[in-house]
């Protein structure tokens, strides 16, 4: 590869993960000032008592790519999303990202039961970086899409989990981020909304937004994602075209 084409190729990635490992200690108790004064504040790394949630992860995700992360519980899917999102630091290796990121873990994170659904929409959107004017402009459309127009003044506590998830997803459609890190955030929906969700994802399929989605829904991964990463007990089993990886994953599971 020529130097010129290498540099073009280099510019195309928005997420680059190189030889990343993440160690989690087993903490016995919280640190106290006394312990901090007598020895270095610890998150347990130095005693070696813990486990590697991820090891030897290598990824390069281009702008606009839609990538699914599949694997059993405890495979390291959430840890990887948090590492990419900057909420954890890698114990080993390097993670680089380009562009604004949004991490969504559970639809209700960022919502307050004591406020009304409308007030929550402003709060929720501001946490994820959407400016107030944009929320104001799209306020009615967001509630209409979620089929919650009559609930905009109701206290959030009176809405079911499914309704909150619909409101969160409807708001998400207006987020401005370049990279979306989604962690099974919208799995609990009825069949009617599942179809609406799919329509939204289909519209997103060909734009330049990058998605990294941890999911157990293999049909969704096939429909939306061009590439899939398969994690098993913190190790990278495969990272390739979705069809190919999912076939391996299904065969391994049978």
């Amino acid at each position, binding site marked *: 590869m020529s130097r010129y084409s290498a540099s073009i190729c280099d510019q195309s990635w928005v997420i680059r993960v190189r030889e990343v490992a993440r160690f989690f200690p087993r903490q016995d108790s*919280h*640190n*106290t*000032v*006394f*312990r*901090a004064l007598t020895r270095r*504040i610890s*998150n347990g790394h130095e005693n070696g008592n813990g486990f590697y949630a991820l090891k030897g992860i290598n990824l390069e995700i281009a702008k606009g790519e839609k990538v699914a992360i599949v694997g059993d519980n405890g495979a390291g899917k959430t840890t990887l999303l*948090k590492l990419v*999102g*900057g*909420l*954890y*630091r890698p114990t080993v290796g390097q993670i680089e990202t380009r562009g604004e*990121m*949004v*991490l969504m*873990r*559970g639809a209700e*994170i*960022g919502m307050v039961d004591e406020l009304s659904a409308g007030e929550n929409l402003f709060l929720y959107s501001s*946490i*994820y*970086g959407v400016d107030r004017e944009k929320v104001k402009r799209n306020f009615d459309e967001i509630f209409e899409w979620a089929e919650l127009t009559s609930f905009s003044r109701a206290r959030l506590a009176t809405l079911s989990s499914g309704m909150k998830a619909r409101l969160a997803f409807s708001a998400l459609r207006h987020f401005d981020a370049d990279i979306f890190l989604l962690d099974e955030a919208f799995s609990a929906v009825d069949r009617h909304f599942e179809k609406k969700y799919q329509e939204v994802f289909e519209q997103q399929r060909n734009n330049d937004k990058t998605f990294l989605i941890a999911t157990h829904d293999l049909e969704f991964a096939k429909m939306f994602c061009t590439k899939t990463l398969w994690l098993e007990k913190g190790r990278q089993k495969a990272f390739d075209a979705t069809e190919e990886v999912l076939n391996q994953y299904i065969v391994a599971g049978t």
Partner: protein
Amino acid sequence: MFRSQTGQTIEHYAVYLLIGLVQYTHFANSTTRALTVLYSMKHLTGNAIFPKEVLVLSATMADTIELALSMLICVAVAAVSGIALSWVILLLPLVCLLQFILVSSVSLLLSCLYIFVRDIGHIWGAFLRVLIFITPIFYDRSFLGEGLGRWILLLNPLAYLINFSRTLIIDGKPVDFVSAMLLLLVTSVFLLSTFKLFKIYEPVFSEYL
């Protein structure tokens, strides 16, 4: 001796005491609340990408509005008590601003520390109990005398702020410009330093929650 330093020799003692208590209570409550804000909202702190200082500063801002309303009550009580109010009370919002800067700096530092060492809450509670006695709230500044007492006063920014409010409301005189500017400079530098420290440790908050 103690009695001679309190009610008997201080003019308008009720208002004097009220101002001291309002400002101390604001400082104590606001910093104590902010101390645990990152931990009590750990679902948000540990799972969403956003500047975490927003949680601390929004808590201290809400408390500063409460302080401003309490100071208005102090002014009303002063008027009812027969104190001739002067136009200089219009400078009170500046005292509230200085107190907001001070409380925000301390809160950023404490909320960050609380992530790493959870017993800092107990230590801060004990410090606040000491603070009420080493700040001239119910006694006159002269009670602390020279020597160590003078140094305690010099190093206590809350004592300056309470003194500023008393000067504006009870004495009806403008605050000493040099002292006010010096305090603004010191609290601003403290705020910038604690903010920087907060941003340095922000990327590891999730790991300790």
